[in-house]
């Protein structure tokens, strides 16, 4: 069962990954096939586990101010800054629609 072009396009939009070529897509397909083996296990009546931490105690911190005040250090790696603000583009620049961008997915 192959992954559809719509799903691949959707993934490229959401995660901003670039499958680049058929090899990338093939790798994805193989990864899904590998994970699908989980379906062979009968899990009827078993509560799903979503974290290996489920039996751990969630540590609660006291409400004290212990961090912050490191503006200089934080801005050190910023390529552009304006008066201690980070600078970003005016808004999200969404990936152009499938028809409008150059991607090998179009050929599929």
């Amino acid at each position: 069962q192959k992954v559809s072009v719509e799903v691949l396009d959707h993934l490229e939009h959401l995660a901003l990954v670039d499958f680049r070529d058929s090899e990338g897509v093939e790798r994805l397909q193989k990864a899904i096939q590998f994970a699908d083996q989980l379906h062979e296990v009968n899990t009827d009546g078993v509560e799903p586990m979503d974290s290996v931490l489920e039996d751990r105690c969630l540590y609660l911190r006291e409400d004290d101010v212990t961090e912050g005040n490191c503006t200089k250090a934080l801005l050190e790696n910023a390529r552009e800054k304006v008066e201690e603000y980070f600078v970003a583009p005016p808004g999200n620049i969404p990936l152009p629609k499938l028809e409008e961008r150059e991607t090998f997915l179009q050929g599929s």
Partner: protein
Amino acid sequence: SSLAPWIPVVGLEIHAQISSNSKLFSGSQVQFAAPPNSLVSFFDASLPGTLPVLNRRCVEAAVMTGLALNCSINKKSLFDRKHYFYADLPAGYQITQQRVPIAVNGSLSYSLCIDNKMSQMVTKTVRIKQIQLEQDSGKSLHDDTRSQTLVDLNRAGVGLMEVVMEPDMCCGEEAAAAVRELQLILQTLGSSQAVMAEGQLRVDANVSVHHPGEPYGVRTEVKNINSIRFLAKAIDYEIQRQIEELENGGTILNETRAFDSKLGCTVPMRDKEGKQDYRFMPEPNLPPLILYDAQSLPANMNHQQVINIDWIHERLPDLPSVKREKLVEQYGILPEHSFTLLNEDGLAEFFESVVEQTQMKPKKVIGWIIKDLLGYLKQHSLTVKESPVSSFLLADLLNLLEKKEISSTAAKRVLAELWKGEGKTPLEIVKEQKLELLRDQKELEQICQAVIDGQENE
């Protein structure tokens, strides 16, 4: 207009900033105005290698709020990641509680005046679907001239309680009343200061319309509402807009709209990206949040690591509805008076203080508080705390009135003088302006006689 009636349906998503010293998952400070990026830890900036550590106070705030809203508190709740890209969300996801939130299935009762008459109040209820803990995002300042956005992460990571109200409301007025009551409850609990102007309480409205007997219509989400007054306006505008659109044969898009307060209308928000897919997944760095009650309290656990729901329940303060009932019962005032007293910060305390210091009956005192005191404060945009007339001075004045040393007309004149805040006592003003009521029979007869004599001479 169409023959078939329209039923508007309004639901609300309210984000209340938790009143705490530090953030939900880090130890940086929570404060409204501060130099940009000065209240930001490495975790808040999403630098690699950092991990979330849950703030106990935030959990307590959410439990208190859940209990006050009659919710079931989930003894086990989970944290999830909600993914989307935006410059003020450095991690690329928000930690929230999508699958199992901390509190569910509650209710909030609120009151409305029928026909704008305070004397006729009706009580309504809205169901609370859930309350969840989540992170706030940073702030984006849009600089259109230079085509850039400036990002301040001071707010990133601040704890929020999202309160989801089911679509049980039907108009702007109901939504505004419900939010107002929630605001009072949060302020009474201290779990949030809920000041809308400072972004501590943000409300998004979900609005749709349908004909009776038909399924619910397509809903729109209305954002960017900065006050309770605008909330009512935005909702009523959107209801009207949808009705008109549908009656003209159009359709409603499932979109997000922003309220433009200057124009008094809702406009579509830039939505180039289409419907968002948040790809929710469990937060891998946080185990489930376990809460206890008196029965399930573990014996050998560090008490600082344990949150006991029953312990919190026992210590809840009187909620606004209870406070109002007590005021009505204790002082014999009308229910609508109790609403006014609680609606104004410090007014109930002022009233009680005056009652304590005067012989005048509370039923009479209340008129002076609500009409004269509050009227003046509103006229001059003052809060109760800023009142030039203290409860002591007002009580003093009302005592003179009660002892019949002055008339009520004179009392109003003395009050007018007291507002100037010149430090004079009511008695001094009475003497200065010769406002004492004359009670000496002989003196009164002499004055009347003089007036009559004066008339005869003309």
